[in-house]
């Protein structure tokens, strides 16, 4: 237990800000219309304001109460998201095989077991499976290797 319910405070504030921002943006940019003929702005403005209210309703009571501690895993998150970025950005220039293998290697970085052999084996296995499933099986038109 920690002194304040930080997840709710930060989460609520972020949500309130997002709601205010969306409502403000919609207010300036889109026509709210009339009650009889609602414009494109009406719904987003309403939702944004509701979100802002809800965010405050989450954050304010949380200021006065204790909450459970949160243990974020920034390294795990960075590697998993990094693996996706590597795959997404590498797919076109590198081709399916290198992009898959690289992405597997990046994503296994935070796994709780040391050693490189199993990572390499897994990269080969997953790459083989991916080529089989998506290239041979589903016939996706993707370059397998970098264009020379």
């Amino acid at each position: 237990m920690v002194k304040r319910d930080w997840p709710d405070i930060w989460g609520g504030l972020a949500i309130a800000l997002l709601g205010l921002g969306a409502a403000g943006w919609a207010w300036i940019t889109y026509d709210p219309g009339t009650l009889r003929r609602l414009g494109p702005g009406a719904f987003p403005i309403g939702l944004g304001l509701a979100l802002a209210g809800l965010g405050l309703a989450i954050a304010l009571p949380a200021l006065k109460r204790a909450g459970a501690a949160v243990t974020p895993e920034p390294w795990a998150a960075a590697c998993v998201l990094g693996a996706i970025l590597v795959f997404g950005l590498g797919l076109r220039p590198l081709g399916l095989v290198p992009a898959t293998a690289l992405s597997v290697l990046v994503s296994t970085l935070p796994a709780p077991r040391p050693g490189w052999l199993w990572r390499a084996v897994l990269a080969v296995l997953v790459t083989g499976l991916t080529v089989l499933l998506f290239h041979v099986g589903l016939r996706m038109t993707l370059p397998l290797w970098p264009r020379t």
Partner: protein
Amino acid sequence: MGTWDGLLTGFAFALQPGVLVYCVLGVTLGTLIGVLPGIGAMAAISLLLPITYYIGAEAALIMLAGVYYGAQYGGAVSSILLRLPGTPQSAVTALDGYPLARSGRAGVALFTSMAASFAGSVLGIVVLVLLAGWLSRAAVAFGAADYAAMMVLGLVAASTIGSAHPAKGFAMIVLGMLLGCVGTDVNSGVQRFVIGRAELLDGINLVALAMGLFGVAEVIGNVRDPGRQAVAGRIALRTLIPTREDLRRMPLPVLRGGALGSFFGALPGTGSTLSSFLAYAMERRVARRPERFGTGAIEGIAGPEAANNSAAITAFVPTLTLGIPGDPIMALMLGALVIHGIQPGPMMLEARPEMFWGLVASFGIGNLLLLVLNLPLIGIWVSLLRIPFRWLYPAILVFVCLGVWSVRGLTFDILMVAGIGLVGYLLALARFNPALLLLGFVLGPLIETNLRRALLISRGDPMVFLERPISAFFVVAAAALLVHSLVQARGRRRAVGAAAPDDGAR
């Protein structure tokens, strides 16, 4: 079309080899996903969404539905053997299943859960057929105002019933609805929140959203999982056979759980997780010796398992007859149908009999398959529990990326998945429920369209929502739920304050 004709059409359709194979694939994958803790039915269905582009709409729905109810069967396995719920719906099964397994009767617990799941599903199918026919006839009278009010009720129910923190649930729903606004407004053609990206003109990609929120966020949360220490031993087939005493204890809880699940499954906003908890509570209440619960009571497995399976099936009632998904998984199913250009509604039973009746028939076939396959194959499922997560998640990530990419061939969508995955992980850290976000995302545009249409028809008079009896009923029910949850929250706060007066001082 009468019920019997419908069923005949349905079985004729669902038994075609080209359709049956997707049913088998769906239930097998579902069981697999259900058995493995860490990946839920939401993640599995979002992973499979792209594949549904390659097959017919009917087969796609049958496969995705198979994943859903298959996961209900599989979830019980890891609940019973490891006390790790494979799916949230099977969490209660662990309460009595795990003690049974510890006392050497794992086989009986597994048999009970499978048999109860099957019986609950059969009950659910009967209710689905009866209710769907009735509701689609009644729904012809529904106007835009009624639809909007009903969807709002569904969203209110989803975020308040059984939720410890309704405000957080609501916030997720509203955030989802706001995300649903992104893209070209269908009424006016105005581009909203597009931030200058042509890729966002059609709105945020449902597949990317679902995969980011569930696939990626769940992977991040489980990466550091060191593996399962307590791996169950082998389960001999002989140990599956229950005693006569066990058999005697099963039928009534199954009937009660199945009835309860069928009811709550069909209500929009309440789902199979809630019904399994309610069924457990009910079994405890009606039991002659409630103290047996928690130590290995057969009733504590039979009731909830029947309930979550029947609810998983009747959840299709509002989805197919009204086009309103009652829970987040149904929202994904609806998304899959919309991808195929099908908007379910009251006319669907008439216009697409293969779709509805084929699905009904596939429920029967799939559940039978699950029953006859799972009992002998239980050894394989148990050995699957030995695979550490680190061998699985890199492949999941690659499949997520390729799945999203396959929809439109855009790198933008893959990068979007990473961004949404980060948001999903942060939401999970702060204990927000991303499933509600998805529900809001799918229902938001439908609510907006119907709201605007209703106001246009009533010439701007908001009283239309109270003047029409159907919509008035939904509005009043939603308001009552809101008031109830507010009162409850206040009561809880007072109770907490009385129990721990020095909470703030620490």
